[in-house]
């Protein structure tokens, strides 16, 4: 098992290297350069030229790339032109918001996903299964943007159960219970919006696995041993059916940690997704590039988590 993890990590290094190169090339297309925002506009052109020279604006691209990489490795991903604070710090406090929202969304997703998946798998073909299938189509057919809009329209504006956006009521003292509750209150609607749409994958995988295992040979063997149906489900069918679901958990964690851009935008929730959009609009490319690299690495970590879960759960991978 450790070998697979080590190999996965080793593969990560070239991938990130190529990724950084790609992001660097992407960045070089982006208008503006290291100087934008650093100099006051009324500096004379010669002075501007001199500064550009000093800052190595005219160096060959590989020198610039080399400098950029060494900075990145030392944690300095450049400065946000719009907020004038280091990129890492800017992303840092937004990451917390996204993390908690993603965690809540992940929870809702897997509670709905697993329960619906098991029910529709076990009662395959029955009315409840048809209802769940209808729900999955509705969820597939509903872009998160549209559901977000509809949710705000009904639950925030009309019924006023949930706030329209933001993370916490103004004037709340951090650390107090009411602050915490208000944070949850702000997160609920976006989390539900995501949590209702994302479980489709979990449901479909779980259902097809259960349906396949129900007619498998080793379930027939269990029945021939006189094992009651309930135990056959828990010890034989579900145990095997949960394997791919567990494997997908890794991907889902990474995907959700990335913060859903759509949902954060509609609910104007200041997470990393929203930060990305704002940075794009403000041409704040240092932040954009940092976020892209962060999410790419997150995705690879997601696959790593999946591998670890798979080898932990499935003896066929663990014991060669």
């Amino acid at each position: 098992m450790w070998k697979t993890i080590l190999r996965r990590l080793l593969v990560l290094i070239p991938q990130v290297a190529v990724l950084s190169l790609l992001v660097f090339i992407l960045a070089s297309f982006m208008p503006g350069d290291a100087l934008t925002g650093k100099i006051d506009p009324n500096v004379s052109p010669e002075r501007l030229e001199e500064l550009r020279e000093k800052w190595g604006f005219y160096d060959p691209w590989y020198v610039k790339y080399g400098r950029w990489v060494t900075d990145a490795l030392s944690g300095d991903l450049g400065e946000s032109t719009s907020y004038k604070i280091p990129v890492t710090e800017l992303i840092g406090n937004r990451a917390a918001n996204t993390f908690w929202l993603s965690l809540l969304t992940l929870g809702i997703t897997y509670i709905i996903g697993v329960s619906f998946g098991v029910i529709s798998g076990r009662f395959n073909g029955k009315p409840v299964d048809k209802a769940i299938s209808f729900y999955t189509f509705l969820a597939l057919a509903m872009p998160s943007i549209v559901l977000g809009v509809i949710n705000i329209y009904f639950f925030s504006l009309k019924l006023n159960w949930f706030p329209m956006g933001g993370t916490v009521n103004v004037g709340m003292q951090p650390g107090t219970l009411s602050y915490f509750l208000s944070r949850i209150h702000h997160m609920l609607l976006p989390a539900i919006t995501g949590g209702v749409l994302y479980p489709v994958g979990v449901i479909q995988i779980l259902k097809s696995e259960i349906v396949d295992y129900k007619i498998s040979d080793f379930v027939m063997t269990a029945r021939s041993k006189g094992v009651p149906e309930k135990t056959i489900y828990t010890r034989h069918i579900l145990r095997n059916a949960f394997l791919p679901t567990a494997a997908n958990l890794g991907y889902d964690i990474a995907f959700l940690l990335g913060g859903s851009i759509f949902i954060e935008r509609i609910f104007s929730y200041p997470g990393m997704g929203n930060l990305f959009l704002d940075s794009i609009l403000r041409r704040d490319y240092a932040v954009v590039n940092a976020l892209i690299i962060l999410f790419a690495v997150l995705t690879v970590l997601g696959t790593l988590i999946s591998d670890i879960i798979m080898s932990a759960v499935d003896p066929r991978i663990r014991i060669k």
Partner: protein
Amino acid sequence: MEKNELLRIDNLITSFRIDGQHYAAVDGVSLSVSENEVFAIVGESGCGKSALALSVLSLHNSTYTKVEGNIYFKGTDLLTMNVDELNQFRGKDIGMIFQDPLTALNPLMKIGEQIEESLTFHMKMDKKQKKARTIELLEGVGIVSPELTYSQFPHELSGGMRQRAMIAIALACKPSLVIADEPTTALDVTIQAQILDLLKKLQKEMKSGIILITHDLGVVAEMADKVAVMYAGQVVETGAVGAIFKNPLHPYTRSLLASVPGVDSAEGNRLHVIEGMVPSLKNMEREGCRFAPRIPWVDKSEHEEHPEYHEVDKGHFVLCSCYKNFSMRGEG
């Protein structure tokens, strides 16, 4: 000495639902298996032998399969029972061995765990006793290092060892009847020989009845005391193994035995070929003798309108009178 009867199947009809219609794969089969006896059911694909085996313990999927008739196990009819009652018999009094050891074991459960599972539901044993019994079982089926195999997973074992584990599962509660559905078909011939010898040894020790389902006439000759030959859902001939192999009567049995290559045939001559094809479940002519279309040179009058069993001699039954003066094509 007349062995007392273990299982009596009475006019069993197992039909599968295809496009809303029910078609009988097992079409009125009656047979009885006694203690300490290996009863072989032999036939080609689609003759209904596996459907019969699964019907005994009602392992069919009830939405697509209808099972009618009676199956008396030591006097009680299994078909009238609900699942909970049936579960008292499954694994305890009647054990099953399946064909493909690769898929018949749960890949995520240790071998020991899968054997103990039937002990848990049928025997009053604590953890320690169950483990001891399992190790003893593994040793009994000829596994070299039982302690190691106890905590191994199915994918770590070879095909032959996995089949031995299957046998250990089936025999865990010392059942009086074991149903083996093509137990060695998926194994190599050298491993098959070992597994068959093992089954024979265990059968003698436990004096249990074994129903052996197979398509291999050689396996029948090696293992069986009594034989039933099936064709198109019906038993066409049944009797002691000596009678069936020495003095086969039903045209199908005789044709099958003549088709076996390498028996005495020198390299030159031709094997006997049964004309036509096994009819599919849906478009099968169910009236009259079902083998008639495969032996066209036999005159219509030879066949019975409603074929019955003729007891040629003690315990040797043949379906339909066409066996009387049947001769292979060209031998006439």
